[in-house]
């Protein structure tokens, strides 16, 4: 139980939050811009997901899609500043979830964003967090832990789905050859004809996904190598069949000591108030960072939602 709530420095959640919300905005315009085009697609092609039917969500009209696009863009960028984390966080979660329902209700569901949705769902529960705040916080610990669990569940349960739908013969089938023929890069076309290689890769993928939960029992020294391996797996996937899994990659940052990134940035930016130790970080994404919190000051709680 204490494992689920193991506290982490609050700065970690502050950096994670900024990256997640910036990505949510970038996702709208860069990574999945096709969602917007569903507003101009005939509603005949709309195949609402179960959740959309249960909640009686309206069929996406041009007006609805455009409204959600702009509202989500504005709220995500505001949330990235770290202000009003509860209100803005829940708004972004609800809007992004509806955005995904619109995205996946046309006959094709993507599987690259479960952990990202979990991140959006838990970030509002963490309260105010500043970039260089090193105070340990169990709320931040739980939030990051469940995102980690969602990341690993994506791998582990993907192998389960392969066994359920494809069976063990999935490993000796032609799923990679098929993927490469349909969307392979020149690099993939080059290596696909090598005898046995794609079968070996399929066995490797199954083994990796089944073993992925072991990351939780590794010491940090080895855990970071496992995370590096996870990222390299996706690097290969991108270079072969151009599947990016970008939202999942963002969620995977939950494994890293991100608060060190805040220090790294602070060291490289010119100090505005060199006489006061630890307050040299200029405004980052609107967040006045580097406010050193003394024990007992209670600044994080006292600041309240959105205040300084």
């Amino acid at each position, binding site marked *: 139980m204490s494992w689920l709530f193991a506290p982490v420095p*609050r700065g970690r959640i502050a950096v994670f939050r900024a990256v997640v919300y910036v990505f949510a905005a970038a996702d709208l315009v860069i990574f999945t811009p096709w969602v917007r085009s569903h507003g101009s697609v005939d509603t005949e092609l709309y195949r609402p997901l*179960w959740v959309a039917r249960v909640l009686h969500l309206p069929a996406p009209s041009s007006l609805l899609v455009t409204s959600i696009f702009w509202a989500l863009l504005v709220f995500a960028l505001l949330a990235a500043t770290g202000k009003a984390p509860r209100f803005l966080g829940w708004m972004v979660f609800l809007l992004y979830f509806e955005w995904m329902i619109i995205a*996946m209700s046309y*006959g094709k*569901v993507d599987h690259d964003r479960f952990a990202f949705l979990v991140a959006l769902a838990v970030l509002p529960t963490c309260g105010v967090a500043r970039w260089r705040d090193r105070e340990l916080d169990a709320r931040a610990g739980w939030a990051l832990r469940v995102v980690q669990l969602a990341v690993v569940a994506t791998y582990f349960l993907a192998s389960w789905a392969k066994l359920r739908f494809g069976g063990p013969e999935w490993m000796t089938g032609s799923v990679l050859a098929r993927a490469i023929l349909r969307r392979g890069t020149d690099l993939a076309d080059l290596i696909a004809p090598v005898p046995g290689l794609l079968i070996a890769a399929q066995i490797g993928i199954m083994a990796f996904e089944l073993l992925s939960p072991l990351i939780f029992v590794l010491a940090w020294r080895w855990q970071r190598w496992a995370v590096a391996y996870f990222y390299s797996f996706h690097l290969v996937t991108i270079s072969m069949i151009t599947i990016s899994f970008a939202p999942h990659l963002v969620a995977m940052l939950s494994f890293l000591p991100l608060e060190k990134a805040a220090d790294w940035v602070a060291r490289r930016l010119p100090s505005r108030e060199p006489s006061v130790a630890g307050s040299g970080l200029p405004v980052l994404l609107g967040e006045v960072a580097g406010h050193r919190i003394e024990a007992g000051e209670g600044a994080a709680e006292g600041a309240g939602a959105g205040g300084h």
Partner: protein
Amino acid sequence: METTISARGRAVRLAATLIAGVLLLAGTLWGSDDHFPFGPFLMYAGVNPPNEPAPDPRIEGTTLDGVVIQLGEKQTGLRRAEVEGQQESFVKEPSRLQEVVDAYNRRNPQGPTLSEIRYVMREHEIKTSRPTGKWHDEILATWKVPR
């Protein structure tokens, strides 16, 4: 100094974790894509035997001038997988391809007018889990665009 969570806060978080976990597990065991976000992680989970050809469908149109154009995501706003997901209904009822024509017209009001639209399946040959480089095309559905 450390921020802790109240007993109630812990209980709520624990319950949320367990409920989401159970839903995800149930989705993986019995669910389908329809249950997003708790459906099974089906990326590349299909059964593809070692010598099964790879289907590579596309929608193409012929303009009034007789030019053949591709009707991909850029032209219609529909992703290939989405088009593929509706393949059966296009084949059963070719008039439904008119929806794709309409989507094309909405996005390209100044573009060339289509006289015909086709759902074409290209099958790439695969032997012992490796592509052979051979393929053939088959037209699965044709729809003459009413003037």
